[in-house]
C-alpha cells in the first residue's frame, strides 16, 4: 500500500481512496449514490450546483462531494439528516425556476433533474412568485435549446472549453438573469458539439433532428460502431419501432471515451433519404427502371462475365463486403480490385504495410511529447482522435503540421506550416534533413536548406520520448503520396518516432486486410493468378468492359470524378451494389442492386488501432434492399462461383480471420527504390482541396442536419486575398472553375489560410463533382 492510499468511511463502510482524490469519485466507484448535476467525470470540478452536499464529520457544514478531497480517516455520511436536508434544500432551489413541462420535454424519462427530484424533491413547491423565462436563440441545426429549463450546471460551457477546445457557450448575465448560451445568435461550429446534448442533465440542450419524435422509454437500443471514420467510435442506435430515432455514444474508454463526433451522431438522418434504392434496377432504353431481384441478378451476372472487370469498393463498407468484393472479382479472374478511390499516387504501394494503422493505441495520442502531422486535417477527419491529441498539446507537447493550407485547430500548433500542396514534399524533406534522416536514395532533389522551423520540428521529434509522425487523409489523396511516405518513413526512423497512419475511412485498414487492393489478397498475401491488377485510377483511366461498384459514388469518391464518370459511361457493364442512387450512379449504372446501410446489416469495422469491431443490424433495410453479403451470395450463385455459400455473415468474418493469422503490424517499411523528388508544378493557379467532414460517405452526404451545419457548407472556391486581387475577385463573387475541359460555378470565399497560388476546391460535393483531380492546374474566372 503506497503512502497515497488512505482509508475513509462512507455511510459506515470503510473505503480506500487516494489522498486528495475527490470524494465523489470514491463514492461513485463504491456504488454509493450521491446526487449531482454539475459534476461530470470528464470535466473539471465546478461545484456550483451544490446538489452533492454530504455530511463530513468534524466539518461545520455540509461539503460538496465533488470538490472535497479525501483525507485520512474522514467519516462521511451521504444519507444522514444533515446531508439529506442540504440536498433537499438545494433541490428545492433548483426547481424554483424549472418549468413543469416534462410531458413535452425530450429529456423526460432520461432526465437527471427528474430522477433526482423523485428522490430529493418535495411533492409541492412553496414558491409562488413568477418563474424565470429565457428566450431561446438558434444555435444551429443540430442542437435544440430550451434554456428556460437550464439549471446553470455549466457542463456544456466546460465541455466547450476543456474538451472541444472551442469556447462558444458561456454564462452571461448575473444572479437570476444568468443565461447559458452564445450571447449573440450564432451557430455552434464544433465538430463534436452534439456531446453537450448528452452531458446536459436537463432538457435545455436536446437533439434537434429527433426533437418531439419519441419518448425515451419507448425506444429500444442496440450497440453499434460508427462507420464514418477510422476511430470506430462505439455508439448505441436507438430505435423507435423499426426506424432509427437517434444515435448516442456508447462508453468505451480505449476508443471514444464517452464522446462521439456530430458525424457519428447525426449521420443516421441520411438513412431515410429519398435517394435510397428500395428495389433492384436495370437500365432499359437508357433509363433505370425498377425490377425484381431475379431479373436484376441475371442482368448483373451477364454484365460481370467479361474479359476486363474492375471492382471498386468503398472503404466505408463493412469488412465482409470488402472481402466479398475482392473475392468475387478474383473468382471472376480479375485482380482489378481496389478501395483506394480517392488516392492519386500508387507508386509506393508495394512498400505499404499490411494495413495502415496508428502504430499505437488511441489513448496513446494523449501522452505524446511531439508529433508532426503531414497532410492532415485531423480535427475534421478523425474528430475523436483529435480530442485525444489535443490533450497532449495541452500538456505541452510540440505538435506541428505540414499542410496545403491552415486548418482551424483547437490547440496551438508548435509549427503550423501551410504551403502550396506541391511544396509539401520540400518542407518535409527539409524536416527530414534537419533530423539527419537518410534520404540519400531520393533522386533529383534540388538544393533544399533546412530552416529554423524545420529544425525545431526535427528536434522536438528527436527529443520527445513519445513522438509520432502522422500521415493524414490529405497525404493519401496527395499526388506526391509516395514521396511523402518515403520521407515520413525516413524521418520516423531517424528520430525514433512512431510512424502513424491515420486510415482515411472507417474501414481503410479493413480493406487492406480484406485484400481489396490489386496487388495483395486477403491477409496481405501476394496475389495469385494473372499478377497484379489495375489500381483504382488505372481502372478508370480507360474504360474496362465492366465494373462492379460496391458502395461507391463515382462522382464523389473518385480521385478524378470527371474522368471516372466518363470511363464508367463508356462501359456498358456497370453493376452497382449501393444503398443510394446518386446522380453519378444514375448516369453510369446499368444494374443497381439495393443494399443495406450500417444500421441494417451485420458488419465488422477495423479501426485505426487494428481493433475488429462487429455489429449486428438494428433495423431492416427498406423495401427490397438486402444486406450486401447476401447480395454477393446470390450473385455468386448466379455466376456459378463456388465458395460463397455462407450461412451467416460471421462465417465470412471467420474465413478472413483465418487468412489474417500471424500478421505483423508495422508502418515502417524499407523502400526498395526511393521515389524521385517531386518538383513544384508549373501552373498559374493550382487547385488544392480535401474531402470535407460531411462529404466522406454516402450516408453522411445525405444527412440534412449535417449538410445544413456550417461544416456542411463547403462548396466554395476559397482563396487568399492576394489571389483574389490578381483575378479581380471579391468575396461572394460567382466564378467559373475549369479543369481539363469541365467547369463548375462556385461562390468565392476569401480566406488567407489558403496559400498563395492556390484555390481551395473540395471534393466529395455534388457542386464540384464535374471537376477533375483534387490537386492540379485550374482556371478561375468571374462569370
Amino acid at each position: 500500500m503506497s503512502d497515497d492510499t488512505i482509508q475513509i468511511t462512507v455511510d459506515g463502510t470503510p473505503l480506500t481512496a487516494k489522498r486528495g482524490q475527490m470524494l465523489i469519485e470514491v463514492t461513485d466507484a463504491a456504488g454509493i449514490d450521491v446526487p449531482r448535476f454539475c459534476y461530470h467525470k470528464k470535466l473539471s470540478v465546478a461545484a456550483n450546483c451544490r446538489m452533492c452536499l454530504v455530511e463530513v464529520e468534524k466539518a461545520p457544514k455540509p461539503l460538496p462531494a465533488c470538490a472535497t478531497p479525501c483525507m485520512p480517516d474522514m467519516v462521511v455520511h451521504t444519507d444522514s439528516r444533515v446531508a439529506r436536508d442540504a440536498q433537499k434544500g438545494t433541490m428545492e432551489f433548483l426547481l424554483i425556476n424549472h418549468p413543469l413541462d416534462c410531458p413535452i420535454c425530450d429529456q423526460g424519462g432520461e432526465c437527471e433533474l427528474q430522477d433526482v427530484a423523485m428522490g430529493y424533491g418535495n411533492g409541492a413547491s412553496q414558491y409562488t412568485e413568477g418563474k424565470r423565462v429565457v428566450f431561446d436563440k438558434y444555435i444551429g441545426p443540430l442542437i435544440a435549446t430550451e434554456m428556460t429549463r437550464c439549471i446553470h450546471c455549466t457542463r456544456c460551457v466546460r465541455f466547450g472549453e476543456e474538451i472541444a477546445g472551442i469556447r462558444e457557450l458561456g454564462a452571461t448575465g448575473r444572479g437570476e438573469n444568468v443565461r447559458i448560451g452564445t450571447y449573440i445568435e450564432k451557430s455552434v461550429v464544433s465538430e463534436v458539439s452534439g456531446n453537450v446534448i448528452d452531458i446536459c442533465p436537463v432538457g435545455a440542450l436536446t437533439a434537434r433532428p429527433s426533437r418531439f419524435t419519441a419518448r425515451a422509454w419507448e425506444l429500444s437500443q442496440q450497440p453499434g460502431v460508427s462507420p464514418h471514420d477510422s476511430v470506430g467510435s462505439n455508439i448505441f442506435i436507438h430505435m423507435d419501432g423499426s426506424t432509427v430515432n437517434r444515435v448516442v455514444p456508447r462508453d468505451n474508454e480505449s476508443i471514444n471515451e464517452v464522446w462521439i463526433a456530430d458525424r457519428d451522431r447525426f449521420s443516421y438522418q441520411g438513412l431515410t433519404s429519398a435517394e435510397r434504392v428500395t428495389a433492384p434496377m436495370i437500365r432499359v432504353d437508357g433509363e433505370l427502371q425498377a425490377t425484381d431481384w431475379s431479373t436484376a441478378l441475371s442482368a448483373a451476372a451477364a454484365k460481370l462475365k467479361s474479359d476486363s472487370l474492375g471492382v471498386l469498393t468503398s472503404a466505408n463498407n463493412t469488412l465482409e463486403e470488402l472481402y466479398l468484393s475482392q473475392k468475387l472479382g478474383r473468382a471472376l479472374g480479375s485482380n482489378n480490385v481496389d478501395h483506394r478511390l480517392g488516392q492519386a499516387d500508387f507508386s509506393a504501394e508495394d512498400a505499404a504495410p499490411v494495413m495502415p494503422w496508428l502504430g499505437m493505441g488511441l489513448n496513446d495520442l494523449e501522452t505524446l511529447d511531439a508529433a508532426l502531422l503531414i497532410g492532415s486535417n485531423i480535427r475534421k477527419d478523425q474528430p475523436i482522435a483529435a480530442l485525444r491529441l489535443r490533450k497532449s498539446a495541452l500538456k505541452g507537447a510540440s505538435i506541428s503540421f505540414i499542410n496545403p493550407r491552415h486548418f482551424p485547430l483547437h490547440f496551438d500548433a508548435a509549427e503550423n506550416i501551410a504551403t502550396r500542396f506541391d511544396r509539401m514534399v520540400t518542407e518535409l524533406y527539409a524536416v527530414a534533413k534537419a533530423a539527419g534522416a537518410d534520404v540519400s536514395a531520393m533522386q533529383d532533389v534540388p538544393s533544399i536548406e533546412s530552416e529554423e522551423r524545420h529544425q525545431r520540428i526535427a528536434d522536438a521529434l528527436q527529443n520527445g520520448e513519445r513522438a509520432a509522425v502522422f500521415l493524414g487523409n490529405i497525404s493519401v489523396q496527395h499526388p506526391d503520396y509516395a514521396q511523402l511516405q518515403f520521407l515520413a518513413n525516413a524521418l520516423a526512423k531517424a528520430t525514433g518516432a512512431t510512424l502513424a497512419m491515420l486510415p482515411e475511412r472507417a474501414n481503410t485498414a479493413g480493406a487492406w486486410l480484406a485484400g481489396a487492393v490489386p496487388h495483395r489478397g486477403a491477409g496481405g498475401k501476394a496475389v495469385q493468378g494473372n499478377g497484379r491488377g489495375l489500381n483504382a485510377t488505372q481502372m478508370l483511366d480507360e474504360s474496362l468492359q465492366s465494373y462492379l461498384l460496391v458502395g461507391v459514388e463515382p462522382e464523389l469518391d473518385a480521385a478524378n470524378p470527371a474522368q471516372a464518370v466518363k470511363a464508367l459511361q463508356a462501359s456498358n457493364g456497370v453493376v452497382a451494389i449501393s444503398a443510394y442512387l446518386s446522380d453519378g450512379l444514375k448516369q453510369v449504372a446499368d444494374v443497381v442492386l439495393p443494399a443495406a446501410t450500417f444500421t441494417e446489416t451485420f458488419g465488422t469495422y477495423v479501426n485505426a488501432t487494428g481493433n475488429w469491431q462487429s455489429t449486428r443490424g438494428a433495423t431492416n433495410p427498406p423495401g427490397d434492399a438486402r444486406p450486401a453479403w447476401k447480395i454477393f451470395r446470390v450473385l455468386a450463385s448466379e455466376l456459378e462461383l463456388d465458395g460463397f455459400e455462407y450461412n451467416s455473415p460471421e462465417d465470412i468474418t471467420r474465413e478472413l480471420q483465418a487468412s489474417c493469422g500471424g500478421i505483423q503490424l508495422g508502418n515502417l517499411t524499407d523502400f526498395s527504390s526511393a521515389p524521385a523528388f517531386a518538383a513544384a508544378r508549373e501552373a498559374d493557379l493550382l487547385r488544392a482541396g480535401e474531402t470535407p467532414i460531411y462529404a466522406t460517405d454516402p450516408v453522411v452526404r445525405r444527412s440534412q442536419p449535417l449538410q445544413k451545419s456550417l461544416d456542411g457548407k463547403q462548396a466554395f472556391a476559397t482563396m487568399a486575398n492576394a489571389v483574389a486581387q490578381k483575378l479581380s475577385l471579391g468575396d461572394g463573387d460567382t466564378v467559373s472553375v475549369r479543369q481539363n475541359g469541365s467547369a463548375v460555378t462556385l461562390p468565392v470565399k476569401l480566406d488567407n489560410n489558403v496559400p498563395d497560388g492556390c484555390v481551395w476546391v473540395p471534393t466529395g460535393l455534388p457542386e464540384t463533382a464535374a471537376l477533375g483531380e483534387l490537386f492540379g492546374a485550374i482556371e478561375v474566372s468571374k462569370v
Partner: protein
Amino acid sequence: MSSVPADVHLPAPETVLNEHSIHEIEEWMSRYPEDRKQSAVLAALSIAQHQNQGWLSTELMDAVAAKLDMPPIAVYEVASFYSMFETRPVGRHCVAICTNISCMLMGSDTIVDHVENKYGIKLGDSTEDGRIYLKVEEECLAACAGGPMMQVDHVYHTQLTPEKVDEILDALD
C-alpha cells in the same frame, strides 16, 4: 495558448477601437504579464464603453476579445455580469439613483418617482432624445452618509431633494 476559437473571425481591434482607446488598453495590458492579458478586460471594456457614448456593442466587445486574445463569449460574460457595463444603446448621461437601504430610508423612492415622472420613463429606460439614461442601480454606492444620493456621469450628488435633482439634471447638455 491562444484561447480564441480558430473558427471565429474577429475584427481587427484598430478598425473598431479608436487610437486613444487602443493606447489606453495597451497601457493597462502593460501592467500584467504577457500571458495574462485577459486581466485587462475590465479596464478595456470600460475604455471601449467610454468611446461609444456609454454602451458596448457586440463589435466593440469582439474588438476587445481580439485585443486581449480571449474568446468573444468570455468577454460577453464579463460585460453582461457587471452592472457598470451597458450592452444596449442608452442615453448619453447616466443617472443612477441609489436605492439601497440607507438611501431608501432617507427617501430615495421619492427621488426615483420624481425623476421618472419628470421624463416619463421608468428606471432602466432612456429618454427618447437620448439625453438621459435612468440606470437601475443594483449596488450601494457607498455614500450612505449623504443619502439620498445619485451618481450622474461619475459624479456623486448627495442629500438630494426633488428641487436639487431638477437643478442638476437641467444643467446637463
